[in-house]
């Protein structure tokens, strides 16, 4: 029977894949997830019936999107297996979905370094790096078919007429 040869993987990829708690590795940093999520909620969404520190104008400077869209992404993405809050082998809670999406969106939107997010959402660099990949995959899976559609027959009935204002009738 034909036996598959093991795929040759370069050593630096092999090392990157082995992100597990093993003997001989450095201990985990004690990242204060609770304060990270509290600060995020306090700054942008408000906690304990207090209004958020930053209003909509500040929000749209810090994020390239309206607040409703960010909330929608959070609501849609919280059921993804990666973005769910997990409990690791030492029975401690990991980062919740809001922090991962928050950090990953800043990386996608402003192309900032992944460890920059560590300072304000208190999430590890490697988690943000993974979250960026998962968020991009989530966008494609969830929104690609909804957002990118060809103009339908109804659209095509309306669009060429509108373009007469631009002296190019019949253009779509």
């Amino acid at each position, binding site marked *: 029977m034909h036996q598959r040869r093991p795929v040759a993987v370069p050593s630096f990829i092999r090392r990157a894949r082995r992100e597990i708690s093993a003997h001989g590795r450095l201990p985990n940093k004690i990242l204060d997830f609770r304060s990270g999520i509290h600060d995020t909620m306090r700054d942008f969404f408000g906690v304990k019936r207090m209004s958020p520190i930053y209003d909509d104008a500040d929000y749209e400077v810090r994020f390239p999107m309206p607040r409703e869209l960010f909330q929608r992404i959070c609501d849609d993405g919280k059921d993804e297996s990666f973005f769910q809050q997990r409990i690791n082998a030492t029975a401690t809670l990991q980062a919740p979905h809001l922090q991962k999406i928050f950090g990953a969106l800043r990386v996608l939107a402003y192309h900032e370094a992944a460890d920059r997010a560590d300072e304000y959402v208190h999430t590890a660099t490697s988690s943000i790096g993974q979250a960026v990949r998962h968020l*991009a995959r989530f966008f494609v899976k969830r929104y690609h078919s909804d957002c990118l559609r060809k103009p339908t027959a109804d659209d095509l009935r309306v669009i060429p007429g509108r373009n007469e204002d631009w002296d190019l009738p019949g253009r779509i």
Partner: protein
Amino acid sequence: METSFYEDLCIYHFILGAPCSVNDLNALDISLLFSEVCAGEWPPASPLSINGCARTNTYCLLDGIYPKYPFFAAPYSIPVTAREISFNRLQEAVKKDFERLNAVMSSHLHVKLRPIRSFFIADIVITGRSVPSMHNLITVLWRKNESPFREGSRPTTTTQVFVNMQV
């Protein structure tokens, strides 16, 4: 990345490719949208009259070197008459929408300018594919409830421009 979009910067079709690997004609060749156009499946016939002449099919604007199909309205390469010159001027004015899309999309998602950040090819492709859908979401939402913090008002007309851009 080759994109087809309305004038309010909503993308509805795009192709991704490695920089400088796909030129205009190859992009047209692999485009699913254009293969539907060639097969006659899209766009549906919508009769209209232009300057009194009856036409059945719509057309779209483009830039670069493309074959002379009736679906495309290309600018004249050497405009001579006043009518040709004014058509070229109009066409090039509308083509600037492409630069507008480029600027707006990269301001929404800066990762569009540097999609090679990821290590693996699959991640690079996924990142590139996620940009237009995210951009569309943002554009549509801002179009629905216009934010007072954005300057300028949204355009009311809708057009489509075929453009080719190198990421």
